[in-house]
């Protein structure tokens, strides 16, 4: 059973992948809750699905195209207006090694 492999180390690893800071208490709760949810969900891994194609999307459309014509886009000021920190021409972010 895959769910049995949910332990604190795995939770910490996944949280790091998801760029999510969890408190100690949150991580401990996550171990319990994810295990119980996955235990229920894992019933589907017992189904015989060998010849079944996957469905990623229900809409039967491929390559929806439009003419490649220039048109006005969002003005820069509007795009930057909601940023927590912006310069005149871009989003400002902390240095990776500050």
């Amino acid at each position, binding site marked *: 059973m*895959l769910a049995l492999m*949910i332990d604190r180390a*795995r*939770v910490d690893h*996944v*949280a790091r*992948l*998801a*760029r*999510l*800071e*969890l*408190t100690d208490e*949150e991580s401990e709760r*996550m171990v319990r*809750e*994810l295990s*119980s*949810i*996955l235990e*229920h*969900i*894992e*019933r*589907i*891994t017992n*189904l015989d*699905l060998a010849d*079944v*194609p*996957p*469905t*990623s*999307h*229900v*809409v039967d*459309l491929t390559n*929806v195209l*439009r003419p490649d014509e220039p048109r006005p886009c*969002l003005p820069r000021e*509007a*795009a930057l*207006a*909601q*940023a*927590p*920190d912006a310069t005149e021409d871009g*989003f400002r*972010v*902390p*240095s*990776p*090694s*500050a």
Partner: protein
Amino acid sequence: MTPLDLSAAAAAERVRAGDLDAGELWELYRGRAAADDLGAFVWVAEERPGNPTDGPLGGVPVAVKDLFCTAGVPSQAGSKILEGYRPPYTATAVERLTGAGAPLLAKTNQDEFAMGSSNENSAFGPVRNPWDRERVPGGSSGGSAAAVAAGLAPWAIGTDTGGSIRQPASLCGIVGLKPTYGAISRYGMIAFASSLDQAGPLTRDVADAALLLSAMVGKDPCDSTSLGLPEPVTEPTATDLRGVRLGVPEEVFETEGVESGVLAAFEATVELARQLGATVERCHLPHAPHALSAYYLIAPAEASSNLARYDGVRYGLRVNGDADLLTMYLRTRGAGFGPEVKRRIMLGTYALSSGYYDAYYGTAQKVRTLISDDFRAAWERFDFVVTPTSPTVAFPLGAKTADPLAMYLNDYFTVPMSLAGIPAISIPNGLSERLPTGFQLAGPAFSENRLLDAAHALERAIGFDGSAARA
């Protein structure tokens, strides 16, 4: 009869005929919305917008779920991480409604990023059910459902990813329609699970749902998965079900956790359908019992990817901007997301992570195929499949917050249709223990007109009276 007693379509009709003043109607509902004590709204308009009232929606104001972007108006999807966000543009669905003559009355409360079945996951606090204020309105479109049921808004829109329109409509005693995937543009809808998300109406009756739907459907160059509907939405007028074939899935009766009152109300309406001329037979959706498992892998997987954009850079909350970049990301997301959203991001990230992708996400996508196949087989014998909408009536606030899995089981009857991308409607189906129950009809893709007609005939025969919730 006061304007409050009128359905939205009837009010629109009177405005167009000159028997009702659109300004007075606005003031009536603006006043009621501003006095809301259910927690249904997160923002209420101060003044009547200047958009035209001579369109088909007749100036009847509309309430819109918080996760629709509305230019210059707060749009947070019920989340703290979008604190203070005022989008630079408006969602296509909302644009179409205001263009058709429905001014924006208010933004409604919801579960954060539409993740929840009780509206208790909102950064703005819970919503109360107007039938019993100690109970939940359902979710995630709980604010929209409570507002319409309580007469704080004539009609509203919400979004449905796994039941988020139909389940709260059921728990609040109103009509909720999830259209065929792609019928309405998703442009400007803050994304949860993109292969499942679909906007739709929450209304007092079926005719209102049809009218509101008719104004929203259509292809949109801004959403390449939008298709519109093959024919215009028509006003539902059917009064009987002659020639209609209804399938009742065996699985409804093999499921634990369906309340006896809900089941009794369901069976009574199936009998009513028979009296209206429908042929009713049992059918099988053999993979439906696995839909919930597939859904709780696919939806979190897509969500974990969609919600990666909340990183404290372009909008919303930023925490520890003076630290290094990674710390800023971690703290912003740790502080900005609530517990359920974190749980789903973790579940989705795990399901997509190296070594587990095939076992979880790949398997779920195959089960999704089987569920679509089940419905396709059903359409060879039946026009519609019918089930209860929710296994239970509205439950007390706090009753399920400690057990995420118990909360997920609320979506048992609504998730299969979402995975198959087919339309489904919930109509009020009488009371059980003085609380509303819902009756769900689902049909093949693009069968909206027939579905609304059948729902209309049943609604008329059921004769549900929702006025007590508006008192």
